[in-house]
């Protein structure tokens, strides 16, 4: 399976800055690609385009040769955000947050170290590291083919970061999920990725 980004351009306002112009990238499902760039270079925008939250002005995004928009319902490309506090509904208990995913397996929930007791809590009753585990579990649903990780561990301490990445690497390798990881930390990307891409200023 292949994720192809072909000549994608995007700008937020009509005469605003071009965030991405003619951007091309191909990611195989066996690959783990690290994306590195200073802020304002369009890393998060690219992730939003790939996970279907935004539509490109020009160009196409193909999954397995089909345009992303042709996948009805569950999007095969799932994104995990930088700030988990902002990525969960504060009024849902964590058990319900997990149900937003695509039949998330018990194995994943266990593997991420989520404790039974946390399922009954509200997001405000968990720390950032604990919440981020839920967000990752939610993104690893049955039909997920590619995972986008946008600085998912910058807010966490080093041990939690290492814990989470060890599990994620094992999981994506086992299920053949392609990974696109955004981070500003070169040593981290060297640990987790098979190849790195640097975004250039337009």
């Amino acid at each position: 399976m292949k994720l192809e980004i072909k000549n994608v351009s995007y700008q937020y306002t009509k005469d605003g800055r071009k965030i991405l112009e003619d951007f091309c990238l191909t990611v195989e499902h066996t690959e783990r690609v690290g994306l590195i760039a200073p802020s304002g270079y369009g890393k998060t925008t690219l992730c939003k385009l790939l996970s279907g939250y935004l539509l490109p002005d020009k160009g196409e995004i193909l999954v397995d040769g089909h345009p992303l928009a042709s996948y009805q319902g569950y999007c095969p490309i799932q994104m995990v955000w930088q700030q988990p506090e902002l990525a969960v509904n504060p009024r849902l208990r964590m058990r319900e947050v997990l149900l937003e995913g695509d039949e998330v397996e018990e194995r994943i929930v266990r593997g991420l170290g989520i404790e039974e007791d946390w399922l009954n809590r509200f997001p405000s009753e968990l720390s950032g590291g604990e919440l981020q585990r839920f967000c990752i579990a939610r993104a690893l649903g049955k039909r997920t083919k590619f995972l986008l990780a946008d600085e998912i561990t910058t807010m966490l301490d080093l041990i939690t970061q290492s814990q989470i990445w060890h599990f994620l690497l094992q999981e994506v390798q086992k299920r053949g999920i392609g990974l696109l990881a955004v981070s500003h930390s070169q040593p981290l990307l060297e640990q987790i990725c098979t190849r790195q891409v640097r975004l250039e200023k337009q």
Partner: protein
Amino acid sequence: MSEKKKTEQTPILKIEHMNITFTQYDRGMRQTELPVIRNLDVEVHAGEMVAVVGSSGSGKSLLAHGVMGVLPYNASMGGRILYCGEELTKQRIERLRGNEIVLVPQSIAYLNPLMKIGSQICKGSKDEKVKRKLRDIFARYSLKPEVEELYPFELSGGMNRRILISTALIEEPKLVIADEPTPGLDLKMAKRAMEHFRELADMGAGVLVITHDLELALETADRIAVFYAGTTLEEATVSDFEREETLRHPYSKALWRAMPKNGFGFVSGEQPYVKDLPGGCPFAPRCGRCTEECRKGEIPSREIRGGRVRCLHLEESFAE
């Protein structure tokens, strides 16, 4: 600054056995006590930058609020805070905060959204001297003079960060406390923000930076206080973090090993939630060296090789 000179002076800020407890309503009228910070010790000298490093949700921000005397009404604080050798009482902090002791808060949400940047930093003063000083500060942080006439929402994240630091600089602070100055900034901006605090220390102030980013703190600070589950487990110099062997506490060692450049290893488990903290060492449930003694009673803080640590098993790990 040489090691010797440091010990000769009285520290600008010395926190001894700080405890912060929240009183909460549990169910109905039942009240529970939530000990968020227990037995915290930290020292800051003039010209020194100390980083308190701990993961998010461990209660680090409360440390800053505790020193500044701006804790919420349902919190109570115990222990001793000494400022320049004298106890920092409620009256004293109320007099000193905002001029000698300044807090650089976590986010721009602490700025008044309805007040222009210029008058906000000068606290409404129309004095020419203050205005000139503001322009100097702006020049130093490469902010344009026009910024004075803008409102906080019109500025970018990095600019607002510099505004927050400017608010601290308009006075001549002896002690600067910075609460998470870097989140949401990319590496280059974050480094620059930390360098601003380094400059403040180099100008002679004592700087206490509270952060979750150990790697960043190691680049700019002089000393690191490792904060875990509401307490400081170790105080070490930055150079101690170069090798695992020079670190003292098993948690600091685990942090070291978890750095991507040092092998990316991890210990399982989670930082305990304040409601169910274990007795004794808070790291005991995840520690390989843990014994019966670690789980009961308080672990005293000990001085060893120029740093401080709360661990019972040092002799074994440092058979030198």
